């Protein structure tokens, strides 16, 4: 069967919002990936007297520092580019965990049903009660060498529950359909039925949800870094840039605007893309 319905592609291409989302996402990914080539300076080097005035105020945009300097005297443009890498890596890694766990649990629970379903879904309910901000902050205090991995492992491990529920609901529908019954009647093994017949029909659902999960994860990473959990100084992430700009916000609003605009644009981009994909694949929904 054809994974990508040509009618869906046509619907997507007619959707201006979706296209805008795609462009924003592509630009963000390309800029972050090419940060080492594009960044004019080392993002962690303070340039001291060249970037801080005699009053200690970070300089504004110049030819050498296109977005000016931050409170420590580092190149703001280089930091926002490198910061994007961190934010996107965390978001993609956490989303990967979400997709893996959510699909597995949802698929198994929905297809087998019965006691297994009850046990798994009550587990999901329990997990949904964990406040992830607090959990990440607590874990970060406990582990010996806190860092990025804590953030995305915990974000991923606590955020797959809603995907699992939706995958389970869709699987419940699919397992009653004729082509699944036919496959089973023909003697296909359970793994084969799941992987060859059920999973491909879940693909669009998963892609759509995963896209908006990426947006959520970018926000979550920024919020955590803003609270001082997550990246270790001097590594830049959009959230840590926001945090470091806080005391200077009223004096040098640029320092808050730059990472703030980056976060808003990227999140909006992923959300537009996610909604566009949903409309394209599932016009009725």
């Amino acid at each position, binding site marked *: 069967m054809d994974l990508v319905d040509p009618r869906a592609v046509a619907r997507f291409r007619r959707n201006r919002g979706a296209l805008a989302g795609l462009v924003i996402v592509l630009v963000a990914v390309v800029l972050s990936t090419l940060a080492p080539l594009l960044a004019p300076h080392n993002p962690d080097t*303070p340039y001291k007297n060249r970037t801080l005035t005699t*009053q200690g105020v970070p300089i504004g945009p110049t030819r050498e520092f296109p977005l000016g300097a931050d409170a*420590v005297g580092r190149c703001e443009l280089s930091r926002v580019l490198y910061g994007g890498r961190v934010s996107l890596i965390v978001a993609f890694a956490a989303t990967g965990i979400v997709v893996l766990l959510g699909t597995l649990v949802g698929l198994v629970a929905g297809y087998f049903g019965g006691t297994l379903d009850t046990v798994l879904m009550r587990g999901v309910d329990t997990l949904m009660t964990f406040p992830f901000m607090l959990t990440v902050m607590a874990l970060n205090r406990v582990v010996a060498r806190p860092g990025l991995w804590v953030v995305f492992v915990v974000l991923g491990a606590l955020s797959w529950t809603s995907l699992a529920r939706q995958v389970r609901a869709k699987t419940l529908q699919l397992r009653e359909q004729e082509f699944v019954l036919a496959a089973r009647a023909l003697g296909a093994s359970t793994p084969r039925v799941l992987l060859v017949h059920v999973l491909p029909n879940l693909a669009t659902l998963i892609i759509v949800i995963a896209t908006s999960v990426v947006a959520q994860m970018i926000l979550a990473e920024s919020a955590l870094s803003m609270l001082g959990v997550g990246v270790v100084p001097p590594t830049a992430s959009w959230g840590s840039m926001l945090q*470091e700009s806080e005391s*200077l916000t009223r*004096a040098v609003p640029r320092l808050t605007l730059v990472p703030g605009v980056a976060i808003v644009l990227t999140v909006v981009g992923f959300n537009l893309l996610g909604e566009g994909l949903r409309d394209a694949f599932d016009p009725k929904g």
Partner: protein
Amino acid sequence: MPSIRRASAVVALALTALAACRDPHTHPRYEGAGLPGPRRGGTFRFAMDGDVGTADPALSADTTSMIATRMLHECLVDYAARGTADVVPALAERWEVTDEGRTYTFHLRPSARFGNGRAVTSRDFVWSWERMLNPRRVPSPGADNYRLIDGYDDLREGRAQHLRGLTTPDDRTLVVRLSGPDRTFLHALALRFAAVVPRESVEALGDARYGTEGVGAGPFLVEHWEPGFRITFRRNPYYWDPERPRVDGVIFEVSIARHLQFMRFLSGELELAHNYSLSTADYLWIGRQTAWRPYLQRTPMATIGAFMMNTEMRPFDNVHVRRAVTFAIDRDALCRARNYRIQPAWGLLPPSIPGHRDALPNAQRFDPAEARREMALAGYPNGYPDEVELWIGEGEAGLVYGQLIQADLARIGLRVRIKQASGAVYYGALGRPGTVPMGFTGWQMDYPDPANFIEPSFHSRNIQPENSANHAFYRNAAFDALVDRARVEPDRARRIAMYQEAEQMLLRDAPWAFVYNAVDLSVVQPYVKNWVPHPVWNYYPGDLWLDLPTRAWRAARRDLAAALGPLAHLANPGGAP
């Protein structure tokens, strides 16, 4: 035609919006009336973001509580307001030191009275000190300052009910006998731990309530104490000094967020916006307002900021690595990144502390080449192989210092990993052996004497399994012996020279990289006169006076404009308030 009408409407709207957006507090709302001399009267209002837990002089130890405690309580002697590090008479009008520095005889003023009108006698001091030093009465954090009073150990350990070293020949004479000479003893007596408290008030209220409701012999009395909100003080009519305080009352608001303090100051609801209330952005903003600038005061404070290196942990057990760090730190860049709200330090003793030298021999300095040479001497010409933890407290300043120093040290081949910890965790870790290899530390003085900078942080007596005050775990027998000799040296000049020699040892052994001296930046309303932050008591308002506040004409005109609203722009099209 319609388009012109629409355009003018847009312009009018934009003008109104602009007027509404303009920062309303570029000028003080009130000015002084210009009275010639100190006036008595008025209420001084200020705020802190912390709370006053207790103003019981035996217990109060944090910055915020100490301001309130100073207002309520009086000692035999006091620290001079500024310019000299000496102690000055307070409840004692004079004293004699005899027996080679072992016996102090104090003569109380006839005018010494408590806030309830009763005369202060020498027996009140005996009772107050025995209360403070008896661990079964109140657990005073300051008791150790008085360990040389004869009989201290017996009282502490419950073998005696009274302090043997105190005698009272008559109501106005107090004799203190020490078990050994101590040249810092007068300084210790000016600490509020040694304040006199009226027995009848303490016994009537109980120790706990005395801390918030009791009277002392200080310049002010508590009129109303609203916990976590504000404390209202009024002048103590029985205070020994007829000249002071000059204000009738003080309103001390507590637990007020920093920026809120600043906003309330600008709108004329507080008389003082101090170092703790001015955020970086507020400081930069007010520095640009020409009308405010004359009232912004920059006062160097006797506080040293430093990075300590744990001499028991690798790689800082090697003196060359420690010396390399002292050469690697670009102190001017650090001060610049903090808007010069601090100034570079190259040695331990801050300006204004006896023994400080502007041209300090062997001063620490920024010299990357020398730093690399020391790294090579240490055996790491290509850098130290492992990552080292650098601890900083939470907050913007720590993060700025930490990241700048991280970059400085990377340049000499020392990779550091920044670890941030909250206040209690941070200080707990600093005082535990083998825990913090390198960390931000410093010293805010208790009293203006070099001993106070040298002993707590570097004497090996202050190394303990928990809560060591010697964060670098620095041990040097020659240093200890020198400092112990200095404490009992009767000749002032020789004593100071000994502390300078001790400072030289610290420069050679480099347990700390000295980085900055603090500067107090405060701004007061134009009608506040003779305002200087006290070197020990910070924002204690004992010496200032208030000129008659008069509504500033600019403020009056702006208020008129606000009342008229958009109409004001018809009368005043330029929009200048």
